[in-house]
């Protein structure tokens, strides 16, 4: 008799839920572990308790997808082992260490699907640690899940589709917006016209968000170079440069971000091979178009594998589960697999265009003064990183971490890693690829020291 499969899926966002569904439909009982109290991931995050708002209020054009995904997870309840509020904090070969409440237990798995998602990619600027400054994703979660605006008059700054979406959602919810500041020049947006035939719905929605913001009198500026966030114990304004001139706007909160970065710590601990992705300007776990990592039995799906958004995550989650089934000798519908892969490929072609429309601001890091805090946790400055490169000859991120403590704090480089790579690359004459990537360390997030350990995996 064949040993029963016991796949473990990490992350109950669009990728993880669709992976769980595909496995359950094949008669397999996966374990689905998620840090949040309720499924949906960050994009389709649910409220802790219902309130007066409709799914349309919360998820806008994506309401149908969000409610369908939540319904799928509910429907799966008795066919999967779902562990919410649970942190996978380590992977050692075929065992995952999972903390739930004050306890941690090892879970042995036959296969692993990592659907760990992404966080905002940020670069530092003067004042970014001040109360009132949040990531774009954080600003959106405040509104969506908590029904709160950041401040009473926020500035939204950065690059990427989320910039306009969050600003528009704030406007719709009745918040005042001081400004929308796009780091990309207006001319970059013409790339979206090439994306129009590929994803007309997304492109037209984006234009509509920008047009409605402007029609309501919100100032939307392009080609913005952020100079500083002003304030003392909290935000009072923001200064930027535009065509050589400094401009100022009064505000009491800032939401900013520069697209997304994949959460890759578990892929690293699982031994996955990493490649440098020019489009994401970051190292990420390597995988084939089905989501197979180079390591047998380990699969990657969604934004944690490569940034491509929620629609791609749903498709990739299902595709990875089907790859797992194929590899385990189950029959799989080849025509359906082809359809999934074709749709994924189309989204990736569109993402390449989106990156041109919302390019990463390559000169942001170079403009930073030496005294700007780079690492929020350990409070290491930009100048300390430059000095490590110039005076000590550091050319690699882990060496930089050992000497300066950049990336050694509680967030393990999630917030400073991109900036550290950019600044080290620039100061050492290398590239973000050449300076490498921060190695993951278990536990990947802080655990209490008095956590109770529940023995070894059965």
């Amino acid at each position, binding site marked *: 008799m064949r040993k029963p499969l016991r796949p473990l899926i990490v992350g109950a966002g669009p990728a993880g839920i669709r992976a769980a569904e595909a496995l359950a439909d094949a008669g397999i009982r996966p374990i689905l572990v998620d*840090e*949040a*109290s309720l499924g949906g991931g*960050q994009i389709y995050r649910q*409220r*802790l*308790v219902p*309130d*007066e*708002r409709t799914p349309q*209020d919360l998820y806008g054009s994506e309401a149908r997808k969000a409610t369908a995904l939540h319904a799928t997870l509910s429907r799966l309840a008795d066919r999967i082992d779902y562990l919410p509020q649970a942190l996978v904090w380590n992977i050692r070969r075929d065992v995952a260490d999972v903390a739930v409440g004050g306890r941690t237990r090892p879970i042995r798995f036959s296969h692993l699907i990592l659907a760990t998602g992404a*966080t*905002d990619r940020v670069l530092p600027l003067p004042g970014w*640690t*001040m*109360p*009132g*400054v*949040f*990531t774009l*994703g*954080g*600003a959106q*979660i*405040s*509104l969506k*899940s*908590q*029904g*709160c*605006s*950041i*401040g*009473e008059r926020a500035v939204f700054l950065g690059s990427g589709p989320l910039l306009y979406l969050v600003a528009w959602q704030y406007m719709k*919810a*009745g*918040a005042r917006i001081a400004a929308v500041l796009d780091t990309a020049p207006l001319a970059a947006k013409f790339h979206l016209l090439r994306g129009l035939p590929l994803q007309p719905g997304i492109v037209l929605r984006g234009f509509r968000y920008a047009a409605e913001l402007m029609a309501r009198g919100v100032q939307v500026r392009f080609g913005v170079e952020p100079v500083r966030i002003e304030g003392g*114990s*909290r935000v009072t304004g923001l200064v930027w440069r535009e065509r050589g001139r400094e401009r100022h706007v009064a505000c009491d*909160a800032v939401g900013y971000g520069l697209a997304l970065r994949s*959460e890759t710590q578990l892929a690293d601990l699982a031994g996955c091979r990493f490649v440098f992705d020019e489009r994401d300007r970051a190292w990420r776990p390597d995988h084939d178009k089905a989501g197979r990592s180079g390591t047998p039995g380990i699969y990657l799906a969604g934004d944690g594998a490569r940034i491509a958004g929620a629609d791609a995550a749903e498709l990739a989650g299902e595709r990875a589960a089907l790859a797992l089934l194929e590899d385990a000798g189950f029959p799989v519908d080849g025509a359906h697999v082809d359809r999934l892969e074709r749709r994924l490929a189309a989204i990736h072609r569109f993402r390449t265009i989106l990156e041109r429309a919302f390019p990463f601001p390559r000169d942001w890091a170079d403009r930073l003064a030496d005294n700007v805090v780079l690492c*929020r*946790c*350990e*409070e290491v400055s930009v100048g300390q990183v430059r000095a490590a490169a110039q005076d000590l000859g550091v050319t690699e991120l882990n060496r930089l971490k050992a000497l300066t403590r950049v990336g050694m*704090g*509680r*967030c393990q480089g*999630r*917030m400073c890693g991109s900036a550290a790579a950019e600044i080290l690359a620039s100061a050492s004459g290398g590239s973000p690829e050449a300076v490498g990537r921060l190695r993951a360390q278990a536990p990947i*997030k*802080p655990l*209490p020291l008095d956590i109770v350990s529940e023995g070894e995996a059965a």
Partner: protein
Amino acid sequence: MAILRRLARRDLPEIPFRLNGVACTGRSGDTVLTAILTQTDRLRLSDFSQTPRAGFCQMGACQDCWVLAADGRRLRACSTPLEPGMDLFTAMEPTS
């Protein structure tokens, strides 16, 4: 002055808690972060420069929103649901 402003969920049941020894109320469905930042403007002081912090990513990644409970536990405010009777401290150690 509060950092967060409620635009919705204003009619949900009140949840009593204590913040730095003072009785406060949040709303059902609040995270600890929301409950505190709708009252005031900080969650903690940074470890080195002792400057105020009030969260950043709100999705459990940046680790910038840890607050202290009276029993000595540290809570990640953005991912901890508010519970009635919580006794929370920002930017200070509990006095014994």
